[in-house]
């Protein structure tokens, strides 16, 4: 049976496979050669932007940019592996990327070129510069130009707040009263999602710490302690974070009873369905609510952790930042496109469309009803970077925060973080 069947097979497949493979191979090789050459006369730059929801917007911008001039052609890249690109010395000519710990290695090793001499650098809001430096810094360089800033605080259901006649709390005692009102009405005050540990870190953990401590001052001092971070050092997690973590534990009592088994997607669904009054997430969740309940009225307020309204602050992170690698051979063309992207009408439209705040001195105030609650804190620079973002990723702070939210006593956990920090400092 087999010889009969198999004799015609290889004869057929061998020839046609080889021809087919050869044709495809030649096609790919040609395409590979064609890419670097590009249109005659024009400089071709690659532009990296990986946020899926804004790829369409940037594609229209690239088309507009091509209409305004003919010397620079932009090719969008959304899938390359950034580390691999740098390893083979061919990174994108212009990057538009989340500015977080994934950027640290590129900034601190000087892989990004200095942008201090371009005019857009002077328009950047000076309050934002310390945020950039706190994440990663290369001495004497402006490595990145921030493009959008995300502010996160407590998202609340405005209809539920109105229905039960409660005002936005500005002190811890008021917050507790608000929670009691909802609890008495049978509505879960908070919807927490402990299954996804990052939600605990960016929500409960960062908000309680940022609402009580001067986060950047704490980490500056902590870095000077080196390996000597413990109960006797000037600052340490077990000394400074004990109070915020106690608050975290108290807040966790006002959460939905099934929080331990709920993830980010479940939380978005439940909050959009009005199953809870407050939700500790950033504006990135607004688009997810809209999938379920497009007419939902959401507001924001900073989480009060103390009884002094002067302590109220919102958590921010530099969402997108623009940068040009040192090894790029087309820096001028890349700068031309950078300037195009930084035009106020383009940048402001991006930030308005994407629930973000601007990064320039002249950025207009937000008109988004879900974000106006944070505008004043943004204007006063009453913001902090999330503490969980400033702890190296080698320390699983999200998991530690989860265990406190699930009822662990804070002190042993914080001692563990101190130990982790000291060990990491010893190694580096």
């Amino acid at each position, binding site marked *: 049976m087999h010889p009969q069947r198999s004799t015609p097979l*290889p004869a057929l497949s061998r020839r046609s496979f080889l021809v*087919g493979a050869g044709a495809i191979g030649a096609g*790919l090789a040609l*395409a590979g050669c064609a890419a670097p050459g590009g249109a005659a006369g024009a400089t071709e730059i690659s532009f990296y932007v990986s946020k899926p929801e804004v790829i369409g917007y940037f594609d229209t911008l690239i088309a507009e940019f091509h209409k305004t001039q003919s010397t620079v052609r932009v090719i969008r890249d959304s899938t390359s592996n950034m*580390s*691999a690109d740098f390893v*083979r010395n061919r990174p994108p000519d212009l990057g538009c990327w989340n500015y977080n710990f994934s950027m640290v290695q590129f900034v601190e090793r000087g892989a990004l070129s200095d942008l201090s001499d371009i005019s857009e650098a002077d328009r950047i809001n000076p309050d934002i510069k310390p945020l950039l430096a706190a994440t990663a810094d290369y001495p004497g360089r402006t490595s990145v130009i921030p493009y959008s800033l995300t502010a996160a605080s407590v998202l609340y259901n405005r209809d539920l707040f109105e229905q039960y006649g409660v005002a936005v709390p500005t002190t811890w005692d008021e917050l507790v009263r608000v929670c009691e009102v909802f609890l008495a009405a049978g509505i879960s005050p908070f919807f927490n999602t402990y299954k996804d540990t990052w939600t605990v870190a960016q929500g409960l953990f960062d908000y309680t710490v940022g609402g009580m401590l001067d986060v950047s001052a704490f980490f500056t001092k902590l870095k000077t302690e080196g390996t000597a971070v413990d109960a006797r050092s000037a600052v340490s997690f077990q000394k400074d974070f004990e109070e915020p973590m106690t608050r975290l534990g108290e807040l966790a009592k006002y959460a939905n009873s099934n929080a331990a088994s709920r993830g*980010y997607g479940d939380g978005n669904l439940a909050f959009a369905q009005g199953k809870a009054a407050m939700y500790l997430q950033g504006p*990135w*969740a607004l688009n997810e609510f809209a999938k379920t309940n497009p007419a939902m009225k959401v507001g924001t307020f900073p989480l009060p952790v103390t009884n002094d309204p002067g302590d109220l602050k919102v958590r921010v992170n530099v969402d997108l930042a623009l940068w040009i690698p040192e090894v790029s051979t087309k820096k001028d063309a890349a700068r031309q496109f950078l300037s195009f992207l930084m035009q106020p009408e383009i940048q402001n439209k991006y930030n308005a469309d994407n629930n973000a705040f601007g990064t320039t001195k002249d950025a207009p105030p937000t008109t988004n009803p879900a974000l106006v609650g944070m505008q004043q804190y943004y204007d006063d620079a009453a913001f902090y970077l999330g503490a969980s973002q400033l702890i190296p990723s080698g320390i699983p702070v999200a998991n530690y925060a989860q265990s406190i939210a699930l009822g662990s006593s804070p002190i042993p956990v914080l001692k563990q973080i101190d130990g982790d920090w000291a060990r990491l400092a010893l190694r580096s």
Partner: protein
Amino acid sequence: MTSQISLAPPSTGGERTPVNGDSAHPRARTRGERFNWPVTIALLVCTLAVLIPLYVTLTMAFKTTAQAVDGNAFSLPAPFSVDGFVQAWTLTDFPRSFAISIGVSVISVVGTIILSAFAAFAISRNWNRRFFRWSFYYLLAAIFLPFPVLALSQVKLTGLLHLDNPIGVAILHITFQLGFSVLLFTAFLRSIPEELEESARLDGASTAQVFWQLIFPLLAPMSATVGIFAFLASWNDFVMPSLITSNPALQTLPVLQQIFQTQFSNNYNVSFASYLMAMAPAIIVYLFTQRWVMSGVTQGAIK
């Protein structure tokens, strides 16, 4: 489907028929059939482990975005929507990325079959020489080297050689598939009697003629097996193309699909529609060739 059913029973039935005449065994047989609940349940669980995700993939793909995030994975699509397919089609530039994925897979399948058949033929016919024995062990050792261990050096090397494109990915797929395929081919070649080859040589055939006209056709069932493994490994690969391919316009389908899921947003209907379109070739290839997968594996196992 029919090929799967027709393949399995004859092999067991073949054992049973002669046994039937034995007076001691009919009871054992009926008892075995009646009391084989554990196996039935185990197989049922295995079947469901495949069918349930497949069902969710199918229904999710046809849901609207609002229904896809409502937390009921098992509900039927209402209203029925092909919006997910439309979005997935445009976001991944489906025809182009599909063609590139196919191209990479075809090169890697053809290359794997030919190269490993060459190597296996040379090794099995020169087994008494130390160089060939050791080169066999050398190739086998590659099975124990996963790609992530070598990732950065490969990225650097392909960059230097201007192979940071789908061709480089296909070449690497071939090299990583080589160890396992040579193992299969060598085992299979030992079951082909050397007398066949001797008679061909007596008729004046050269080594090339012996290989192309005699051995390679005889290897066909094993080539199918090797080809299917190579196809699945290449078609489903994510890490290698994502690291090696530098030009985003030449990226394969699995890598492009990563944009559907981020930490902050879920587009289940779009992603599942896209997964379904990407899964189709692998399922179709397997449906038509599973007979050779099974027969190839068992033929290689029995000397």
